[in-house]
């Protein structure tokens, strides 16, 4: 008689195993929204039935290992250049759905030209920006989106915007470009709510983000450039407890970076 390893398959099915995800556990810190974004993208890919024709361009930063997690074709890009690589691939393989996941430093500092020009050309790709107001992977330096007065390792006395310039609003920038078709800002942080039975958590933000990601892919399939900025926390580098960091996103970060639809040229949200 042989003993067999018990199969995890039924449990995975129950939890909603996604073909677009690999079995590899992610390296993301506990409580980080990168894991949520990875799963939301995977579920959007499955809902639209595009797994076999989708390619991700992995950036440099905390999303650098995404090729381990999403069961699709990948190209790992130099820092900031993901939209240029996406453009080159999409031009020669227009049948593919091509997207990038990039951090605030990758997109808005070293790679600002690349993302702006992808938008200027109306390149049908999707860019997902994870804005956590800090360089996470390198250990908490000032990012273009770091808030006024925010303490980071390179602004140890708080960001002085007289000296560094003001935080960059990616959605305002990209929606002002004629070529962009869909520009949206969402929050990936769950929020606390008071219920008659006490404190609970709302996943309203997550559901809205999921819809925005699906819309971004749909806009790309319609031939437009789509951009979704995802406000996220980085409790490790912010040096806050996990839930306080999420609260900071939904109470403070949103003041500088208001959520909402900045541009919807194809009216995808009305369809």
């Amino acid at each position, binding site marked *: 008689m042989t003993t067999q390893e018990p199969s995890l398959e039924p449990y995975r099915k129950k939890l909603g195993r996604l073909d677009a995800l690999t079995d590899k556990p992610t390296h993301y810190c506990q409580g980080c929204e990168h894991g949520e974004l990875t799963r939301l993208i995977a579920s959007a890919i499955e809902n639209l039935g595009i*797994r*076999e*024709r*989708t*390619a991700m*361009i*992995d950036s440099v930063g905390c999303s*650098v*290992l995404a*090729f381990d997690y999403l*069961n*699709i*074709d*990948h*190209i*790992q*890009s*130099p820092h900031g*250049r993901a939209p*240029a*690589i*996406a*453009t*080159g*691939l*999409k*031009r*020669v*393989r227009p*049948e*593919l759905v091509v997207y990038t996941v990039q951090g605030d430093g990758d997109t808005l500092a070293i790679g600002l*030209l*690349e993302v702006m*020009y992808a938008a*200027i050309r109306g390149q049908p790709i999707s860019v997902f920006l994870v804005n956590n107001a800090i360089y996470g992977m390198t250990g908490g330096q000032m990012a273009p989106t770091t808030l006024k007065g925010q303490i980071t390792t390179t602004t140890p006395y708080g960001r002085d915007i007289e000296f560094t310039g003001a935080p960059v609003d990616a959605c305002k920038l990209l929606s002002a470009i004629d070529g962009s078709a869909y520009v949206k800002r969402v929050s990936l942080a769950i929020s606390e709510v008071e219920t008659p039975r006490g404190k609970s958590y709302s996943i309203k933000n997550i559901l809205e983000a999921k819809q925005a990601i699906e819309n971004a892919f749909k806009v790309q399939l319609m031939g437009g450039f789509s951009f979704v900025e995802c406000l996220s926390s980085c409790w490790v580098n912010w040096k806050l407890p996990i839930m306080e960091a999420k609260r900071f996103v939904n109470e403070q970060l949103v003041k500088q970076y208001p959520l909402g639809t900045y541009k919807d040229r194809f009216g995808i949200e009305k369809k």
Partner: protein
Amino acid sequence: MTDRVYMKGNEALAYGALKAKLNAYFAYPITPSSEIPETLAREFGSEEYPDFKVFLQSASELEAINMVLGAAAGGVRAMTATSSPGFSLKQEGLSYAAGMELPFLVVNIMRGGPGLGNIAPEQGDYFQMTKGGGHGSYRMIVLAPNSVQEMASFPKIAFDLAFKYRNPVCIAGDAFTGQLKEDTVFPKIEATEYDVSSWAITGARGRERHVLNSMNLDPEVHAKHVTHLDEKYKCVERNEVRYESYLTDDAEVILSAFGITSRICKSVVNNLRSQGSKIGLFRPITLWPFPYDEVKKLTEHANHFLVVELNTGQMVEDIRLGVEGKAGVDFFGKVGGLLPTEREIEDKIQSPAEEEISD
């Protein structure tokens, strides 16, 4: 286009690439290479070149090389061209491409440097092209044409090598070979079909996903990757060395030069041979892999080498490595866009002295 034409080197290179079934070109203008994108822009959409499906002008050299990376990852014949300052900007992309093993063609029509230099010819990017201008242990195959005819025929060779070894290939011209007009013949060529099915990014339909990546956080895994690349480069060194030897069989003196300076040196060899000198020309065509073994063989009869370059002495270091101290090695260089005259080179041979640079 007729088979025999009179045209500039840059134009010939563009047509050579089209005849080798170029699929995608990403452009950023820079003198003295701009006739390449201009020629391709004119031919874009022409029925004569149905494979030429993408022409796109980028917003920077960085964007252009990364677009090439994306297109090459898609498994097509992709290309970009630039000149020295632009080539510096491409180094990041070339390092990533070597790490990801992406095949494509990059052309460097060299001009004066360092910095903005000028738009006149120099060969000062030899080190950058052959020793790895980007970070990490990698190599790029470098072909140096010395005529408009070779500018026309090298793109096909470059694409074949790029796809054979999955590595970027560089054509190293200079402002002379780019701007020179000569009679050129375009023979009928059969473009090779390359099998990219095991790695190209085409969507994971009916196959495992493809991941093109230059990163391995695990030192053991990364060591394996870099060793694999190194073995590939050693294979290139064994199999792809190209050079031209002219009247070297009995030569006691060897003139060595690449690109445009080799044309002047050939005239010098003809002049001095007619006067009875035992002199020959050795021209490396692949600057990497460098023909070290052939240089060494020449020392069996040659006791003196004169290396002539449009820089302050770069390839001369590789000649010295090949010579291994078995013959004297002199250098004569011109910079700033000036060319050495035949007379100057002859004087230098007849009175070998300390290395010198004239301006």
